[in-house]
């Protein structure tokens, strides 16, 4: 059944063809602007904070390509159901509430990766000399890291959306949460380029696990034991956020029942 839900989520994205095309154009344009800025910032420097110039340019492609995949902004699917009252139906479905949404999100994310992620990288490859993962191990690590990134991102969005149990309309909470995630995930600038004291802290957060980690895995900036550690941090956040989300869900459902009297 969860497979059917995932397929549904996938097909829903295919229906919005022009929106996907426009999204791809917008992501590419923003990526391009960031690339110009980084090229200007680098000037004559060959490498900054471990990023060579081609790696930095590839970073601008990846950070844009992942936006739609992990839905870092404007994910209102659950928040909306509090307003429409669908939350009550969804909760009483004969399946696990978390998995019900996660299955759909996997479908959504897969479609976005195919429609907006890969074409963007391909487009970049035409205009720039971008970095491509060199070894099979790197590709496997990347796939693993991408899967974990989605798991962390979904659990985080799930957690934020549950605020709806207490505040009713969680749009404001969501808006603030998505902004924080954008900034802390390394979507705006590579976390490695922040002042040294900040980089260490930022790398360990769940938000870094959404964009910064898969990007660094792709670029081969983390290797060997560091690669394992990076993946372990992602996995740890996935487990922690899922556990917390489930706890909060239980508390929220109790709260909702009281309200409904």
């Amino acid at each position, binding site marked *: 059944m969860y497979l059917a839900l995932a397929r549904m989520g996938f097909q829903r994205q295919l229906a919005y063809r022009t929106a996907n095309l426009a999204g791809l154009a917008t992501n590419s344009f923003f990526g391009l*602007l960031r690339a110009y800025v980084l090229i200007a910032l680098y000037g004559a420097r060959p490498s900054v904070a471990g990023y060579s110039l081609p790696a930095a340019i590839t970073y601008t492609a990846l950070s844009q390509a992942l936006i739609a995949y992990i839905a870092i902004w404007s994910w209102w699917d659950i928040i909306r159901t509090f307003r429409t009252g669908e939350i009550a139906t969804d909760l009483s479905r004969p399946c696990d509430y978390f998995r019900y949404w996660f299955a759909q999100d996997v479908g959504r994310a897969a479609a976005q990766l195919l429609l907006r992620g890969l074409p963007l990288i391909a487009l970049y490859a035409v205009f720039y000399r971008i970095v491509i993962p060199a070894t099979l191990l790197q590709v496997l690590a990347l796939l693993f890291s991408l899967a974990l990134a989605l798991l962390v991102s979904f659990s985080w969005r799930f957690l934020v959306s549950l605020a709806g149990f207490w505040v009713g309309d969680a749009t404001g909470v969501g808006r603030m949460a998505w902004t*924080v995630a954008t900034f802390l995930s390394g979507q705006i600038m590579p976390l490695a380029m922040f002042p040294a004291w900040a980089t260490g802290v930022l790398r360990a957060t769940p938000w870094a696990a959404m964009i910064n980690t898969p990007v660094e895995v792709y670029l081969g900036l983390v290797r060997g034991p560091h690669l394992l550690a990076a993946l372990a941090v992602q996995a740890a956040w996935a487990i922690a956020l899922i556990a917390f989300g489930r706890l909060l869900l239980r508390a929220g459902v109790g709260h909702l029942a009281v309200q409904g009297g």
Partner: protein
Amino acid sequence: MRSLRLYLRLVGVCVRSQMQYKASFLTDLAGTLFGNAITFLSLAAVFARFGSVGGWRLGEVAFLYGLVEMGFATMDMVFSGYDPGYFSQLVRRGQFDQMLLRPVALPLQVLSSEFTLRRLGRFAQGLIVFLLAVRLAGIHWTVAKLLYLPVVFGSVVAFFGSLFWIGSTTCFWTVEALEAINIFTYGGTEMLAYPMHIYDDWLRYLFTYVIPASLVVYYPALYFLGKPDPFGLPRALSFLAPVAGAAMLLLANAFWRFGVRHYQGTGT
């Protein structure tokens, strides 16, 4: 005069209705301010490592950024009715068809139908960055510069407002808002926040000669910061901001009239 009074009255209604939910409004405001400030801080933190962008110091880039943010936020509030996302809803729900029946100018009705006060958060952020930039860049103020600053600000508002207006007009044909306009509006704010000479020729030409974006931000900024044009174009270009802003508004208005004449309704 009568239409101005009407406009102020209707906008007053919008503002008062948003103030009904004071707590929600204030958290929204704080959230926007915080979100935008954090984005700027993260850019500034990275810039500090590099020292300069294409020969411009942080304070000088912040001047561009602050100016664009203030102008765009003001526009986003005043032109809320022409936000393509909002306007397409007016068309879809048939509310625009009702407006066609009222004996009041259409732009006035659209502009007064929505006034998103929340944008003040973004404006405040832009203002803080701008004031900081003025200190950091060490601008040599003259009376002429002080007089020209509000003109440039108004031109930025007019420029982005025209883009919103044009984007909304396309809804007459497409009903759904065209996301492509975002490249020029939100993409424009991003692009104009950096000195134009870091971009390739085609991009710079597009945003100078096809869409006069650099005339309302970059060239005036050269004058305020006392910098020469790296391409050696005449200094007079710095003073074309109001011309560019007005031309864009006229163009948008003409396109809008054309669109209204061809609008057939959506059947709602």
